[in-house]
């Protein structure tokens, strides 16, 4: 095997307002032809910076040293990217190494056709116009875009998210580079689409013989695609091993902790069973806190267009003390249902009763009093706190609004108690949100939501912006608080494994309609609907051996649907 990329003691520093910060420290890696090297690590571990330095894409404030040696595809010449600049670097980009970006919708220019963007890259490397167009059509067909002759003149918005990522991969492949750098290529995509893109990347390796550097934080993706894995931590590579070795016998403590933190489908079942056993017969006949029947939410369309049906005819119920997990892909309407229950989105049809109030046609003034009985945890911890007020102020806000305290200081004792309940030191109350990490902020967010001891909590993707290790802790805390406070909860997530950990019952949404409802064991253990089966099979498990089997199952499922 020939080496396409050799990184030797690479170091990268950034100039910031607070002085120089070292992002990558003494990293050495090698990638051979036809090999997939996965670089994993938490956010801030330097994995993306390493990837960018392979293509010389570091910003001006960064300084790199060391050697990044790229071999050309025919193995004739070698270039040190760190030492190159300007035209020489442009020559190498695309020809020797290409990049696949995280967010396909921003990686494509919306005002040009995809064909133009593909041809642009070819023309920059001296391919004549007519030949370039033929090549572009050919490559679009290769990555699985139907009718490439026609679709080449379409604009990016005319493609779906998965197709856009295929086109981005086509752009990377078009010059047949020896190395493809894929920076979180599937993070922005739904699991079912993710499985398809991973298949495509696997074909890039097998059919084109390209080496792939895969940057990801998702251990399932690693298990699915990678041949070798490098674990990065605080800017250094702390462990490098064959994928099977790494998953079966991790060497360092950190890797072990990282692997342990990954949620598996099937881990939450015993906890759910214990909770179910503790309930009395009375419970199942008690009135539900949330009762939706034929719930519909329509977003108004622009002038002369039909509105968009986000939720169509959904029947749901949540009883006291019960956690209902709501899963679905993006656009399935799961967040809309959560927002409708919290009164943030208007119900346009059917009936939605929340804590004995009908929300279809409710007036804000009547519902305000009910709000003290509902808590809400938002997805993005970065924006869910007012940046200008301290954490204690923010957590005291519910007390002030509902007249239980005159002044933020009056509620400080309760605030301290709440912070302690979510395992944050009391002193953190005096900090500002930006001084807390994402996980800490999400805990503070829980504290705020639980301040008035609500009967119902709505958690909208509370852990999807967090690293796996942080996510594991927040989920643990959530389960603990649920036991202690006994609130009912609507837990919204796109991640089946996360929902499995916390939920008693699971509801699966698809395009605004309810596909399947049942206990976690029923839905995840023995799914009846084909959509649920496909969703479950698409979810990569963090175990290379098991994942290979699952891949076959998924293929069979897909073939059966055709």
């Amino acid at each position, binding site marked *: 095997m020939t080496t396409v990329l050799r990184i030797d003691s690479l170091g990268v520093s950034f100039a910031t307002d607070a002085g120089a910060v070292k992002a990558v420290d003494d990293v050495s890696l090698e990638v051979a032809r036809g090999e997939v090297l996965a670089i994993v690590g938490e956010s801030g571990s330097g994995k993306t910076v390493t990837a960018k330095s392979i293509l010389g894409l570091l910003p001006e404030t960064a300084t790199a040293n060391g050697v990044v040696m790229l071999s050309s595809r025919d193995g004739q010449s070698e270039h040190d990217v760190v030492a190159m600049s300007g035209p020489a670097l442009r020559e190498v980009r695309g020809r020797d190494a290409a990049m696949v970006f995280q967010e396909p919708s921003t990686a494509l220019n919306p005002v040009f056709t995809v064909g133009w963007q593909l041809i642009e890259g070819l023309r920059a490397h001296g391919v004549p116009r007519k030949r370039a167009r033929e090549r572009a059509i050919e490559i679009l067909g290769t990555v699985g875009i139907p009718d490439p002759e026609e679709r080449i003149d379409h604009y990016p918005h005319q493609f779906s998210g998965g197709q856009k990522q295929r086109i981005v991969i086509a752009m990377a492949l078009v010059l047949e580079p020896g190395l493809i750098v894929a920076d979180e290529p599937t993070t922005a995509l739904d699991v079912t689409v993710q499985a398809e893109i991973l298949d495509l990347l696997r074909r890039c390796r097998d059919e084109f013989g390209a080496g792939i550097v895969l940057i990801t934080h998702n251990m399932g993706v690693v298990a699915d695609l990678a041949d070798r894995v490098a674990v990065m931590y605080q800017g250094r590579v702390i462990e490098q091993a064959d994928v099977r070795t790494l998953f079966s016998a991790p060497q360092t403590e950190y890797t072990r902790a990282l692997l342990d933190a990954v949620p598996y489908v099937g881990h939450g079942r015993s906890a759910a069973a214990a909770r179910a056993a503790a309930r009395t017969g009375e419970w199942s006949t008690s009135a539900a806190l949330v009762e939706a029947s034929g719930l519909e939410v329509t977003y108004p369309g622009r002038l002369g267009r039909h509105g968009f049906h986000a939720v169509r005819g959904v029947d749901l119920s949540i009883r006291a003390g019960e956690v209902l997990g709501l899963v679905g892909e993006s656009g399935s309407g799961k967040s809309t249902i959560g927002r409708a229950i919290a009164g943030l989105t208007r119900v346009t049809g059917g009936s939605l009763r929340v804590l004995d109030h009908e929300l279809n046609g409710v007036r804000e003034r009547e519902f305000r009093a009910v*709000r003290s009985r509902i808590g809400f945890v938002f997805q993005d911890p970065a924006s869910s706190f007012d940046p200008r007020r301290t954490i204690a102020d923010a957590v005291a806000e519910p007390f002030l609004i509902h007249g239980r305290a005159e002044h933020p200081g009056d509620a400080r004792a309760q605030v301290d108690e709440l912070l302690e309940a979510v395992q944050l030191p009391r002193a953190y109350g005096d900090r500002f949100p930006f001084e807390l990490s*994402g996980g800490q902020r999400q805990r503070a967010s829980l504290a705020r939501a639980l301040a008035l001891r609500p009967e119902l909590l709505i958690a909208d993707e509370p852990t999807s912006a967090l690293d796996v290790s942080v996510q594991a802790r927040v989920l643990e805390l959530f389960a603990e608080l649920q036991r202690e406070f006994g609130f009912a909860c609507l837990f919204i997530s796109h991640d089946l494994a996360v929902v499995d950990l916390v939920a008693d019952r699971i509801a699966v949404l698809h395009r605004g309609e309810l596909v399947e409802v049942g206990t976690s064991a029923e839905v995840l253990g023995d799914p009846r609907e084909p959509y649920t089966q496909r969703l479950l099979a698409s979810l990569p498990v963090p175990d290379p051996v098991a994942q290979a089997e699952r891949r076959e199952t998924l293929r069979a499922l897909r073939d059966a649907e055709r």
Partner: protein
Amino acid sequence: MLIAGLVITGVFLLTALLAPLLAPYGFDQLRADGEAFGAQRPPSAEHLLGTTVGGYDVLSRVLWGAQTAVLVIIVAIALSIVVGVLLGLVSGYLGGWLDRVLVVVCDAIYAFPSLLLAILMSIVISGGQSSLWGGLLAAAISITVVFIPQYFRVVRSEVVRVKAEAFVESAKVLGAPAGRIMLRSVLPNATRTLPLIVTLNASEAILTLAGLGFLGFGIEPTAAAEWGYDLNKALSDVTSGIWWTSMFPGLAIVLAVLGITLVGESLNDLADPRLRGRRRAGVSSGAVAETSVAAEATPASAVAENAAGSTAAPAREDDLR
């Protein structure tokens, strides 16, 4: 640039404050010790910058003029900022038909020539009579009318941005009334561009007042010193070789506007980290930032996670649709 701007503006403000002490004569003084100054005298020991065609001391008029300029700035900005910010806040937060009507009205005002409006206002307010406050208010109100749309626009667009942030929704979920959300959560986060417009408007206010004075709608010399009026009266002097009557008031206008504009421009640069100068880091220097789970408490990891959070967020925003 910031330093130069601050120095010029500082001198301008100090002059306005200390005009009674600095100026050798009053702004409407025609004689000292019973003896008239005389008209159009060139600079001399008694009159450092000469005298005007009306027989006033040029230096004193220029120094007192700073006071009038500062007053018009304060009145104009105080009036327009309150109305503009309030309208922008309500319009941006509530949206709907109110928002649409206000936006159209403000666009219409944009299209209206401000000096014409100022002339109209000065006639309405003073009724042809000239006084310090009449002239001042005329200038200030006409400027206000033109400025309100600017504050309105800027605050409204910020409010629309902040309104979509999760912390505003979280206040809504907690059951906070709309007024409380607007004042406590939205407004403090929507004012970051205001200092810039304030400085730009301040310089525009001076220019409008000077323009009014120059066209003859200003303040009579007996009521207050005003640079534009002096320029107007100096018009005929220019062709007869009397340079001091027009040069110094003109210079005062240019310097005051320049100083305030410089401050405004550099505020803009300061607020934008990309425009702030920054040196490159030495070869791989600096410490490795703590980003581990164990060291979760350190601010460095918070920053790193922020970055991750903000890149992950847009990907899932379409969940809401």
